[in-house]
């Protein structure tokens, strides 16, 4: 399923989650790659199905506040580092 790139190419700009008019950008895939964490490992740590991680990364599902906070806690970063309503700034700009 094709994904859409953000205006400046960083962070996943999602196809809007079903039933929602809101666009939420995330850097889950990038954080996973940095920490060498697979989708399954992240899914097990969060207690979700591994396919749900894929949906989150592609922006096809917007997490609940609780899940978003648990994702941020897993990566040990503030939640604003993981999720944003604006495209993330390009690294190096």
């Amino acid at each position, binding site marked *: 399923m094709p994904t859409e790139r953000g205006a400046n190419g960083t962070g996943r700009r999602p196809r809007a989650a*079903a039933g929602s008019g809101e666009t939420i950008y995330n850097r889950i895939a990038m954080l996973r790659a940095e920490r060498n964490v697979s989708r*399954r490992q992240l899914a097990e740590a969060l*207690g*979700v*199905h*591994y396919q*749900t991680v894929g949906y989150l990364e592609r922006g096809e*599902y917007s997490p*609940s506040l609780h*899940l978003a906070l648990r994702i941020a806690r897993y990566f040990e970063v503030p939640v604003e580092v993981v999720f944003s309503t604006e495209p993330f700034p390009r690294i190096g700009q």
Partner: protein
Amino acid sequence: MSFFDDVFVLPHPHRLRASRTRRRCYVVLHVLITLAVAVLMWVVTLPDPGMVRSGLQAVGMLGLLGAWFVVHARLGQATDLMVSYQRLDERQRTELDRATRIGHNVTSVSIFAAFSAVVVGAFLPVSLISELAMPVLWVIYMVHASTPLLLLAWTRPNEAPDDEEL
């Protein structure tokens, strides 16, 4: 994997779970079997069946219901509908709730259509209405029971491979 997972959950990777095309084929098969059962239910109501025809109808009905059960169970495993609600994560619950809502709406439309047909059919022979009652009830029940399952099986995308499988 627990005993529950072994019995009710298709493993990954599994072709039916992972491939939307395969699931859609099963959906079409499910619909065709449902309609075939409805037709057979109507045929059963025809008069003077005779021994041979009765036997064939019975065998046919058992075969179709058995096939329906297998297809329904496989689709349920592939779409996690065999799993209890408490074991689903929030995304799966959201998907299931949406599919159930749509299923309820489709059931309402089906019941209204059947009701309208009965009202219009008041001008038709009573025998025709009694012959069609069971097949129509079967179809309405199947619409209610199967729409969430068929909707999820039809619309879910192909499963994305995990990083370890690339």
